[in-house]
């Protein structure tokens, strides 16, 4: 498995994006640009569409308007290739109570056609190695979160989409996550993070979702 080289030119862009959830227009006219090694921090009040934007970037939700492109190629042209280059860590940890920590991660790796030898270092990285054989039902909220984040390392993908990754993490785990992000970026990876906490991410661009809220008519 070759690591992505830092020189690889990568550019993930969105132009004129609008998103609707139910009957409500969440944001409109949103542009973003994320290049190799870049980080995009999504901020905004609850309901301003941070999660929606991440899901839209992941291709789970089609944009109402606008388009996403990767290196200038529309993402919609090859959705499978787009899925192969991203990780989304959402609010849900997607853990099965009866599977062990190691099995959970091995499945995530196999699902992305990655060999299982990335699993032990991923566990090590988030200090889960001593929990490897425990079933997920006995994990604490913070440990569950760490396991969900360990998926990022269990299989390589250039684009990380993280939705409130700090929820439930203690300070040490937060530092682990920040270190993992820094390494990922140094390798030419891209990160988009929705967060309420100010995260110390060097040279990160901030996108305030509130700026793209649709103007309310007096209805």
């Amino acid at each position, binding site marked *: 498995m070759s690591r992505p080289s830092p020189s690889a030119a990568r550019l993930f862009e969105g132009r004129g994006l609008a998103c609707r959830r139910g009957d409500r227009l969440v944001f409109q006219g949103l542009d973003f640009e994320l290049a190799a090694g870049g980080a995009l921090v999504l901020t905004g009040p609850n309901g301003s569409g941070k999660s929606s934007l991440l*899901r839209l970037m*992941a*291709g*789970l*939700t*089609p944009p109402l308007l606008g388009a996403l492109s990767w290196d200038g190629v529309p993402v919609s042209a090859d959705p*499978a*290739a787009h*899925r*192969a280059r*991203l*990780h*989304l860590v*959402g*609010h*849900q*940890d*997607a*853990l*099965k109570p*009866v*599977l062990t920590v190691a*099995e959970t991660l091995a*499945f*995530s790796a*196999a*699902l*992305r*056609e990655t060999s299982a030898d990335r699993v032990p270092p991923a566990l090590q990285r988030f200090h889960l190695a001593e929990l490897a054989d425990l079933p997920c039902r006995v994990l604490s909220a913070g440990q569950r979160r760490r396991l969900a984040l360990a*998926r990022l390392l269990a299989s390589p993908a250039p684009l990380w989409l993280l939705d409130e990754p700090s929820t439930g993490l203690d300070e040490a785990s937060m530092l682990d996550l920040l270190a993992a992000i820094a390494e990922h970026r140094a390798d030419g990876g891209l990160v988009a993070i929705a967060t309420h906490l100010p995260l110390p991410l060097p040279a990160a661009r901030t996108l305030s979702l509130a700026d793209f809220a649709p103007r309310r008519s007096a209805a």
Partner: protein
Amino acid sequence: MTAFLAMVARDLRLALRQGSDAALVVAFFVLAVVLFPFGVGPEPQLLSRIAAGVVWVTALLAALLSLDRLFQQDYEDGGLELIALAPLPLEAAVLAKCLAHWLTTGLPLVVVAPALAGLLQLEAGGYLPLVLAMALGTPSLSLVGAVGAALSLGARRAGVLLSLLVLPLYIPVLIFGVAAVEQAVAGFAIRPYLMILTAFLLAALPLAPWAAAAALRPALE
């Protein structure tokens, strides 16, 4: 291929560790069939006459019982999102889930069916056709059921909705499955019936995962 096999292995492991599901389906199958002699009386001729139909109808209902859990758990805990975002096409993932579902519910039904048919005094010539017909028919039940399970995902009273969606689609399998057994008992060839069941399975193999995946995508938005 790794991803497909990993999906199957994970679902099998989940089913075996959670245990209850597969066992419940078989228990329901046995109990429901056992109720019939109580309901219609113990005359061997009558039971023998209805054996194939009873075993098949009960097998359909038993298969239906486990269907609402096919995607439900993964949908609720975010696992379905993880699967949908994997490079593996969602259609293949659905097929893997159907395979695991059949191995944990359909296959046990096929294994138990001859014993239950014996309980209902099925005539000697009917056992092999029953097993063959069920072996060909039950995978279709899992596949067609997956479409219903995907469509009813997230709906209130999903279980009831699922039965209404899926049971009418099970009718062809039921008709030809029962006919295979009855024709064998009457001394006719069963090949045509088995071929129709095979045709149904071959049609469901590509179509059902495709339809189920199409129904899952909006649920993930």
